[in-house]
């Protein structure tokens, strides 16, 4: 099949005469991860060129046409069971459409660059990107998670922004999963948890970027596949964001030397984990070195401020191959690359390995010839290595040389346009039996049990291992107040001469996917926005990150389409644009597909951080209001999980109720009518009120018969329903009337359910009027702080 090529280190591959079977054999021999249709398209292309390809050319396709780089499924044509078109290009028809239709002037760049950009004030913009790094973290949790953080930081550097905050969202199997139940080749959740948390902290702490928000959840749907999302937020003077590269500009690679680590990362990220993954995939895992990236950050900012480059991009999935081709495309041209010029870390690298290596901490620049000396001086002054490896050309060809031999010559356009894929999707509503059960007797114990469960308890053992204060701009911290209670969102004050702040929050409700991925997505959006609004956020933009199973299976794709459809419906309904996102598919293991997971990240602004509101109660004798409607929506709730029942109805989103609730909170924060706000989320009213009390020196007394609800006549449903669109508010008593009149003006659903107390305790009266919960702040705190000891 293969012949020794004439050129050193390069093999010519016999493709032109290969039949389908031989193509597939070649595919697996070279580890290309391409489909037959793609292989045939490539074969036809080389028939047209009239020559056999070199291995490096095939590897280029393997990277550039990977799911990871091209979003083939999201861009594909999806048919229903009968072969009718369900949707063509989900990215365009659902996600981008929201942003296009809303057409806000403050959205600077969406869904096209390394990160999405929104304006912050007249001078600055905010860049945001969230990445998944599931596969590498499953194999090597420390290295995988660390390089996930490193990669997303480079995405933000890749739009000339300086990183100011990080977020991480992690999903693991239950920590108490029995060892015996774990298939071979898969690591225990505890091991993954420790390694991932350590890796994330390692990278962010070393770089000096505060990790300010995130989420952690546990579910048996993650035993086979772990989820690691890492996000980065950056700040850039708006005029400095842009791309000015022209043909003739020099291509410079800066940073770490290139090695054999991370070869095939992009195609690995689009394949399925199995028993062999640990051995086979280890090479795909990269080695993190945050100190090099710290130097890169300084260099990028200097280069930006002194206008020394005309373009920048990170070297991520697919390495040089992908970065060079994409930049060439943005210029509308091609590129000439001399691979022997790349600074390498090991001596015996093959040219194709240099071309697709994913060694970390490297960035690619285009530099006008006239500035190249000053550019290099700047880079060297930070003790970084750099190599000029080629230049951009006017003609639309990618030409790669190795010691004067031309070893790759393919058109830019062809490299960027894999054949469109067509896939079948189907979704059928799961048949769930409604379970019936008695009301519990002892609500106090139940609340403590929920508070101490791994899903709800304090994330302190994790959060404390992340530096969330470095840079000195973290106003609302993930754990805030005298008792370090759980914040709904983080607030950053990025500029010294302005009180304006940035509000960062997340929404994550994957366990609702079992009931309906549509309402799972809607609930995630509602939660991300709620959390943001609680502290005073507004003008919110969001990001979507999907983690799903094998899209070649119609049921997996069917649920994906439903979730993406909800993203359109509710982002549009809430009038919040998508500015960036990412999908990670093929998350499968011998245990089946991963629990379908959508992370919504929300970034808002607050005009003056001095108005920011936290969840801790701030005085006694103030009224406590609950906004929004409580429905018997306990499907997938934390309550049902803890009493081990399935079924129930999934929380839906009523746009009108949610929006009026949110507007009420925002206006009352603006006017200074409220002291504390917390949204109702995991564990419902019972847990939210507990969290407010355990965060403060004051207490609360509430009456469940005052809660506005429909079709509920049980205390447990009132306490633990997870209906969306609800907030608990401590209103300043002398502004109570003002609060009510805003609520009425907005047509919000709301009621006064109780008061704050001077004693640090929680009292809850049930429907029958009797006291069903009587707990001290210490009881609540001790329970809440007792969990997550891995």
């Amino acid at each position, binding site marked *: 099949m293969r012949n020794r090529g004439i050129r050193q280190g390069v093999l010519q591959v016999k493709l032109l005469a290969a039949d389908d079977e031989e193509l597939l054999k070649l595919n697996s021999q070279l580890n290309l991860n391409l489909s037959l249709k793609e292989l045939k398209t490539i074969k036809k292309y080389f028939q047209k060129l009239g020559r056999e390809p070199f291995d490096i050319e095939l590897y280029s396709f393997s990277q550039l046409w990977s799911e990871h780089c091209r979003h083939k499924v999201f861009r594909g044509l999806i048919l229903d069971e009968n072969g009718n078109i369900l949707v063509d290009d989900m990215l365009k028809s659902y996600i981008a459409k929201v942003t296009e239709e809303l057409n806000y002037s403050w959205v600077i760049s969406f869904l096209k660059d390394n990160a999405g950009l929104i304006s912050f004030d007249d001078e600055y913009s905010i860049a945001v990107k969230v990445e998944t790094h599931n596969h590498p973290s499953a194999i090597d949790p420390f290295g995988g998670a660390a390089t996930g953080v490193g990669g997303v930081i480079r995405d933000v550097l890749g739009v000339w922004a300086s990183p100011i905050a990080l977020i991480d969202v992690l999903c693991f199997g239950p920590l108490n999963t029995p060892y015996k139940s774990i298939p071979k080749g898969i690591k225990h959740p505890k091991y993954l948890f420790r390694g991932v948390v350590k890796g994330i902290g390692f990278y962010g702490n070393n770089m000096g970027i505060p990790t300010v928000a995130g989420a952690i959840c546990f579910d048996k749907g993650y035993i086979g596949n772990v989820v690691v999302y890492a996000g980065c937020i950056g700040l850039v003077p708006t005029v400095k964001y842009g791309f000015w590269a022209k043909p003739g500009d020099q291509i410079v690679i800066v940073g770490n030397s290139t090695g*054999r680590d991370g070869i095939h990362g992009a195609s690995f990220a689009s394949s399925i984990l199995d028993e062999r993954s640990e051995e086979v995939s280890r090479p795909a895992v990269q080695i993190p070195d945050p100190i090099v990236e710290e130097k890169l950050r300084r260099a990028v900012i200097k280069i930006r401020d002194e206008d020394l480059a005309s373009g920048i991009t990170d070297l991520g999935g697919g390495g040089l191959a992908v970065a060079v081709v994409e930049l060439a495309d943005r210029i509308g041209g091609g590129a000439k690359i001399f691979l022997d010029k790349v600074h390498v870390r090991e001596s015996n690298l093959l040219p194709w390995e240099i071309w697709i290596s994913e060694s970390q901490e490297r960035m690619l620049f285009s530099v006008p010839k006239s500035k190249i000396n000053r550019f290099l001086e700047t880079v060297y002054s930070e003790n970084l290595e750099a190599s000029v490896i080629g230049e951009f050309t006017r003609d639309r060809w990618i030409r790669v040389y190795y010691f004067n031999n031309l070893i790759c010559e393919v058109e830019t356009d062809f490299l960027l346009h894999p054949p469109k894929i067509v896939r079948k999707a189907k979704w059928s509503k799961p048949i769930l039996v409604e379970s019936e059960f008695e009301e519990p007797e002892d609500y106090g114990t139940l609340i403590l049990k929920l508070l101490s469960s791994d899903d709800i308890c304090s994330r302190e053992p994790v959060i404390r291992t992340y530096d969330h204060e470095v840079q000195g701009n973290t106003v609302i911290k993930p754990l805030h107040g005298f008792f370090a209670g759980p914040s709904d969102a983080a607030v950053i004050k990025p500029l010294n001469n302005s009180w304006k702040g940035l509000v960062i929050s997340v929404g994550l409700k994957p366990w609702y996917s079992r009931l309906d991925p549509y309402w799972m997505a809607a609930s995630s959006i509602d939660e991300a926005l709620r959390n943001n609004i609680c502290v005073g956020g507004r003008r919110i933009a969001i990001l979507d990150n999907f983690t799903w199973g094998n899209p070649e299976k119609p049921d997996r794709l069917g649920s994906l389409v439903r979730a993406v459809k909800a993203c359109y419906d509710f982002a549009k309904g809430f009038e919040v644009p998508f500015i960036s996102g990412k999908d990670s598919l093929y998350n499968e293991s011998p245990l089946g597909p991963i629990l379908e997971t959508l992370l919504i990240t929300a970034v808002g602004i607050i005009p003056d951080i001095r108005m920011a509101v936290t969840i801790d109660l701030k005085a006694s004798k103030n009224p406590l209001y609950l906004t929004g409607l409580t429905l018997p929506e306990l499907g997938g709730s934390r309550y049902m999980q803890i009493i081990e029942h399935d079924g129930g109805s999934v929380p839906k989103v009523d746009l009108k109720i949610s929006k009026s609730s949110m507007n009420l909170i925002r206006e009352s924060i603006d006017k200074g009518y409220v002291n504390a706000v917390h949204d109702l989320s995991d564990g419902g009213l019972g847990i939210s009120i507990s969290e407010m009390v355990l965060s403060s020196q004051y207490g609360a007394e509430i009456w469940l018969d005052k809660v506005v609800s429909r079709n509920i006549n049980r205390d447990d449903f009132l306490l633990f329903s997870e209906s969306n669109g609800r907030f608990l508010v401590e209103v300043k008593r002398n502004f109570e009337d003002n609060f009510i009149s805003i609520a009425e003006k907005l047509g919000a659903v709301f009621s006064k359910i109780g008061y704050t107390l001077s004693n640090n305790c929680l009292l809850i009266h049930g429907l029958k009027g009797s006291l069903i919960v009587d707990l001290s702040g210490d009881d609540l705190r001790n329970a809440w702080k007792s969990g997550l000891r891995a």
Partner: protein
Amino acid sequence: MVKYKVKVEVWLKDNLVDAEGKMVEESLKDLGYNVQSVRVGKSYSFNLDLSNDSLVEKVVDEICRRLLANPVKDKYFFKVMRYEE
């Protein structure tokens, strides 16, 4: 049950640039020592209990490959010694 004392050393493979080693080399030169080819590795020592019939070399090798070393970039050696309490 058999008890072993194990010592493992993990080094970056020889053909890979050792960034930490270079840094240490520079510092030692700054301090006036005439050193070359500095490489930095990690050492581990631990006690290991095995059931009678397991092969200690095989288990320690597995430990190295799964946790202590990344076979793609690292080389490793180990020594085992049986002991009684």
